[in-house]
């Protein structure tokens, strides 16, 4: 069990990295990775929302939607819940933990429309459907791991962007194009993890 959870956790960082392998959450990956501190703040906020959103949506799906045969309402229900949740988190933070709000709050609104959050809630349901042993705990670990994977990708990429910031880049590539090429080379390095997690723990 523990081993399985570790495997899920590592896999969601290394082999199923949302950004570098699955193409989820690319907008913040490209947009908020210019500086290390904003990259970290955004990723922490994403991780928090991912975990809370999964904690809310998984039970609703398994105990409300699925028993009544309403699986098709997944998308609409999930997105409503996420949108409401994010707003609630923001408001609560602002009211009660202003320090945390100042650190993370500015990223929260951005997260509602982030593929990665909706993605994780949908994907863990999919996994649960495919594999009976994949339950709530696994889903939570997966969500948390995906958030951390997002953080890893963001932090690594922020380092690279800070490094190439003052580079003498050809004019027509400056800005977004070179950022994407850099992302491409970062993704290259993540190709090598295939099978690693299963090999270690499987």
């Amino acid at each position, binding site marked *: 069990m523990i081993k399985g959870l570790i495997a899920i956790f590592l896999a969601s960082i290394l082999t199923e990295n949302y950004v570098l392998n699955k193409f989820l959450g690319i907008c913040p990956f490209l947009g908020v990775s210019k500086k290390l501190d904003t990259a970290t703040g955004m990723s922490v906020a994403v991780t928090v929302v991912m975990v809370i959103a999964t904690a809310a949506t998984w039970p609703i799906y398994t105990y409300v939607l699925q028993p009544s045969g309403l699986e098709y309402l997944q998308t609409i229900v999930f997105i409503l819940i996420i949108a409401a949740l994010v707003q609630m988190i923001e408001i609560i933070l602002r009211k009660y933990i202003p320090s945390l709000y100042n650190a993370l709050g500015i990223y929260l609104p951005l997260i509602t429309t982030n593929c990665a959050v909706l993605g994780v809630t949908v994907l863990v349901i999919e996994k649960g459907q495919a594999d009976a042993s994949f339950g709530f705990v696994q889903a939570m670990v997966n969500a948390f791991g995906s958030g951390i994977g997002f953080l890893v990708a963001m932090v690594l990429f922020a380092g690279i962007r800070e490094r190439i910031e003052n580079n003498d880049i050809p004019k027509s590539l400056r800005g977004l194009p070179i950022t994407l090429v850099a992302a491409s080379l970062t993704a290259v390095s993540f190709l090598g993890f295939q099978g690693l997690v299963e090999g*270690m723990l499987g």
Partner: protein
Amino acid sequence: MADKLIVSSSPHFRSGITTRKIMLDVIAALFPSVIAAVILFGPQALFLIAVSVFTCVASEYISRRIMKRENTIGDLSAVVTGILLAFNVPVGINPFALAFGGVAAIVVVKQMFGGIGQNFVNPALTARIILMSSFPSQMSTWAVPFYYLHQTDAMTTASPLNILKTGADGTMPTLLNMFVGVRAGCLGETCSVALILGGVYLVLRKVISPVIPVCYVGTAALISLIAGRNVAFDVLAGGLLLGAIFMATDYATSPITFRGKIVYAVGAGIITMLIRIYGALPEGVSFSIILMNIMVPHIERLTRPRAFGKERAKQ
């Protein structure tokens, strides 16, 4: 005095070492391995090295021209990249695929980011991974050493690490054979003697510091020992020596701080062995180096030396 004097900021003296001289030293250090490659894999090896060097230099020249920048092929770094790229492919590779790799290495990895010193991943190794994921069968078809002396032209075998990992059929070479290079593998990686010779030369010429190769190979050996594998085999197999001596030490993509070099090399050693032991691929040198390349900005930031006279506590 008729002419105006030159003024410039101090110092007005230089050591005389230039980028070009450094690259010449690296080329010299690679020379024994070139010879070994030609002996082991025949004239085709020489041809491939020539193709790779030519495409690298030509793409550097052309891309600089297109970007309207000054020509930099004179610094010879493209030659080094070319040789190392050729060292990283099996002798059976399609020369066009190799040329594609050369273009990718120089244009995409190096020049797009501004040229020498500004690339954040190792050009030759990135090209190698691109080739490996694009043409996997060519990149994992190993010719038997001295195949060109035999009548049959298609003599392939499994590489030692592949035999170890997937139980592919093939005979394991003896350690001595692995040391002198009589085993399946990429052009430049098999002959450990030549590689070590080159490494010693580079260290003596102060082109590289021995920190990275020693820590890298040392970490890999230690993990091999702990995992109960054959340490000598792990050190000699695959691209470990070539990677540790020539590729992990690439200036542009390794940390410039002393402690950073240690962290980097140890990290690469760990990842290499993790992939070798657990990963789906038999070998992990390229990926480990590229992964550590990506971490270099953070490693450098965290291992900045304490400035002289700076309070220790504040660090």
